[in-house]
């Protein structure tokens, strides 16, 4: 009896969590020029308009580029930091550990103001360098997390065995450590890409016209009009995230199964 009640509550919770997404998906097919629920008639009209909107298309392209650059750089930086944190005992290690955690604790809006104040005097506002640096600030903590986890599970004896059998320190890293932490690198890179791809708060402070990203364009568009195009765009954003996650799951899943 209490079990059914329990199941019912859990189902309700899921519904509550998923409801906004469901509403957005349904509204994206509405034919009216304003946002309202439930729709009266359905079509793919909003999607057609989104794909015809040059602003959205080029912002999407920039978001992907920025996301890829951020993902790659966050993995490289995350690897270096993780190696230092896991493998070496140095003075100030605790401090570095805390600094890396900090972006988890500080609200994005606060970070945004801080990052803006730092980037402005360097003339980096509304530049690719600026937005990538800003996104690195919030994504590196995640790559450090996943890569540190992978690194801690690498058996030191395996690396020592490589060394004894003739591998230079660099060869040990290239041939042993790197392949063994690859799942952590991929996971970290994907998370960094997705965060960068979805990030709006900080981006709004950094970019204006030249390097606007898809989330900032959605925000700009919302300021002047609210129609189902926004819903369609949101569905496309969600779809990209889901596709990336599934692709990686399949990829790493397959590698593990081999």
């Amino acid at each position, binding site marked *: 009896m209490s079990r059914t009640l329990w199941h019912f509550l859990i189902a309700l919770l899921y519904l509550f969590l998923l409801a906004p997404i469901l509403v957005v998906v349904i509204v994206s097919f509405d034919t009216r020029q304003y946002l309202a629920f439930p729709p009266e008639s359905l079509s793919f009209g909003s999607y057609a308009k989104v794909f015809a909107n040059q602003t959205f298309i080029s912002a999407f392209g920039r978001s992907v580029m920025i996301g890829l650059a951020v993902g790659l750089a966050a993995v490289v930086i995350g690897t270096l930091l993780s190696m230092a944190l896991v493998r070496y005992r140095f003075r100030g290690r605790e401090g570095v550990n805390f600094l890396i955690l900090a972006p988890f604790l500080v609200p994005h809006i606060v970070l945004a103001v801080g990052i803006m104040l730092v980037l402005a005097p360097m003339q980096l506002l509304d530049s690719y360098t600026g937005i990538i640096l800003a996104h690195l600030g919030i994504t590196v903590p995640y790559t450090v997390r996943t890569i540190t986890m992978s690194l801690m599970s690498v*058996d030191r*004896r395996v690396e020592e*065995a490589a060394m*004894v*059998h003739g591998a230079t*320190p660099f060869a040990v890293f290239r041939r042993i450590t790197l392949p063994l932490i690859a799942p952590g690198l991929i996971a970290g890179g994907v998370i960094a890409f997705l965060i960068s791809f979805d990030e709006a708060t900080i981006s709004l402070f950094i970019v204006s016209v030249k390097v606007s990203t898809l989330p900032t364009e959605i925000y700009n568009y919302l300021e002047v009009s609210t129609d189902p195009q926004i819903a369609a765009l949101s569905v496309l954003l969600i779809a990209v995230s889901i596709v990336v996650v599934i692709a990686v799951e399949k990829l790493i899943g397959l590698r593990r199964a081999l």
Partner: protein
Amino acid sequence: MSEHHVVVENLVKTYPGAATPSVDHVSFALPKGEMLALLGPSGCGKTTILRMIAGLIEPTSGAIQLNGREISQTPVHKRNMGMVFQAYALFPHMTVAGNVAFGLEMRGVPNSERGPKVQRALDMVKLGHLGDRRVTQLSGGQQQRCAIARSLVIEPELLLLDEPLSNLDAKLRDEMRDEIREIQSRTGVTAIFVTHDQDEALSMADRLAVMSAGRIEQIGTPREIFDAPANEFVAGFIGAGNFLSGRVTAPGQAEIEGLGPLRFAAPASVGSRVQLMVRPHRFKLAAPGPNAFTGQVESLVYRGQILTLAITVGGRRLTADLHTHAGTLPAKGDTVTLAVAPGDVTFLSEAAA
């Protein structure tokens, strides 16, 4: 010195923060092609010695020479050693052949030569048919053989083995023991072998170093160590023994507390206290007489070829290993007499009274 392949001199290792050294002035020299076993209880510093020789940790002081050349400052990857780790430490993301080829690759051996060498090494350890397998899909014994092939294919100056058999079940352990020994003598590689199993050490090594608390207590052939242990620790660690202490009453004769007179074949001054030992297999069933002790059989363990029995004499226990073909065997509660020839009594130490 130069005739020795490996020379270790006064090697000391004190780990940072440790009060006492883990390895304390260890010295030994090993001719080419010999196999040395480092034997001792857990924590006595065996692995530490091996890791210093491999270059994985730095000695606090002391010298390590290979072919007459000091190698303490040589980086690990240039020492040309093969090593079999306790848990094998195979490269989990590579195939069996990939693991074995690794060292050759690092030495820049061209691809065309690598293939045949890897195959030969795999054939030697009977894994020739499993080259394409991932190492994670091997049994414990196969992993161990893969680790041996990986360390031998590079034709190392020195082969280091850290308890390579400890993860195997008893039957496989016996097989691998013979196999390692055979491979070692066939390839003629100089080897240092760490173990805390005395049977393993006795049956595999040309020479044996018995260690305790970071020091080498005795180094010698298995025979020397077993028959002429330098002290009580070595005697007790290698094989079982009946330890008897007493006072020398006449040349070659001591009065053992609770047992009576025992004759032994070693010089010791009259009046001093001596520590003697009789190995269980040195006792024979006999009629009462000199160097014989009579008592009641307290326990019996039948082991096929050998019968281990314990008798109580004057409040103390003596154990004996008797061959089961020796006529009628005693039963529990029987009164028997155990005799030992004076030459079979091991003299351990002497101290002034």
